[in-house]
């Protein structure tokens, strides 16, 4: 322990505030260090000297003077306007006590906590689905539809009957093919009737006008071919019982 360590602790040591090892260490240093011992002796003498200073008595007339001052102060109070007395009663030194400040702080904290909870409750009322969007599967974005002009639309509408007739023709051709496969089981008369009927209906198609009439003619042919392939009796009405 050095002198620099001991000097700051001398006051506490001399006042008996250092206990155990700390007190013993300072005492040990003082035994070996004359400079610190002199300082400690001086401080102890000073402390004893301060303690031994005589008690000073108050002047004998002081009580009377105090009474006079108190009386004067009361007279001054009575002469004060009422609003000043009220103001004095409400001055901060009267009502801002530590307890009041503490209570105000507690009320503020409680209010903030309540407001926070209320805000949280309102937040919870909103469905979570509205807050978190579901993860949707990745959908390929369709290619943008080309913008149609009025002329394009008119052309498409005009092309519609022909397209319908074409799809009818395709269906009829498919059915005709099926009928060709089925005709091997027919009699010669039935085959002859079938060929005549198909020729007649195809003639109707070629002679009918573009659009609805031709579509109607196609629908007749298709119905006939369906009956023929399923050996419906209607298709061979005149050869019933002789398939």
């Amino acid at each position, binding site marked *: 322990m050095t002198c620099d360590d001991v000097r*700051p602790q*001398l*006051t*506490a040591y*001399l006042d008996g*505030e250092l206990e155990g090892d700390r007190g013993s260490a300072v005492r040990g240093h*003082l035994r070996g260090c004359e400079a610190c*011992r*002199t*300082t*400690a*002796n*001086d*401080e*102890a*003498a*000073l*402390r*004893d*000297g*301060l*303690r*031994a*200073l*005589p*008690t*000073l*008595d*108050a*002047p004998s007339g*002081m*009580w009377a*003077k*105090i009474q006079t*001052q*108190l009386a004067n*102060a009361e007279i001054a109070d009575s002469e004060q306007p009422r609003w000043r007395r009220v103001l004095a009663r409400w001055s901060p030194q*009267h009502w801002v*006590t*530590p307890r009041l400040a503490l209570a105000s702080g507690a009320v503020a904290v409680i209010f903030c906590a309540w407001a926070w909870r209320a805000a949280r409750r309102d937040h919870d009322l909103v469905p979570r689905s509205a807050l978190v969007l579901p993860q949707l599967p990745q959908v390929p974005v369709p290619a943008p539809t080309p913008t149609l002009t009025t002329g394009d639309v008119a052309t498409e509408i005009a092309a519609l009957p022909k397209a319908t007739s074409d799809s009818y023709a395709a269906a009829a051709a498919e059915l005709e093919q099926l009928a060709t496969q089925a005709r091997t089981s027919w009699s010669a008369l039935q085959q002859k009737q079938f060929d005549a009927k198909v020729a007649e209906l195809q003639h109707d198609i070629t002679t009918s006008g573009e659009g609805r009439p031709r579509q109607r003619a196609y629908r007749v042919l298709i119905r006939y071919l369906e009956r023929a392939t399923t050996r419906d009796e209607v298709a061979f009405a005149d050869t019933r019982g002789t398939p």
Partner: protein
Amino acid sequence: MEMLYHQFKRRVFGMAHRIVGPNDAEEVAQEVFVRVFRGLAAFRGDSALSTWIYRLTVNASLSHLARRGRRQEVGDETLADVPAAPEVSRDPGLAARIERALAALPPGYRSILVLHDIEGLSHEECATILDCRVGTCKSQLHKARGRMRELLGPIGGTSQ
């Protein structure tokens, strides 16, 4: 009221005397007692009555010194640097030397020495009166004694 006055008059006057000096001590002591009696109804009992009265005394003394300092344009450091009064040589007694050194100290150091060493209050009471922490109080006392030793020179005590 008078009983309270007689109970505390010596200590209040003694503290004021040693902090502000003999000339203004009575004025400060009167001011303290007027404050005590007028504020007694509002005393909340947060601390002991004696602590409250000593606190009023120290505050009134320091305020008085501040007012007087402003009037006389004399700062603490100037007070501390005032050379020892010529009476020192005529009064070889330690008590008188100590009183003079005490008067030359800055008011803060003077207050802690008066409260702790002269009036014998504990560090806790001193801390309450001076409105500081106990550690600060101890540190101030150490510095105040050091400054007193500087002002007094060797005292030649034989305490060890």
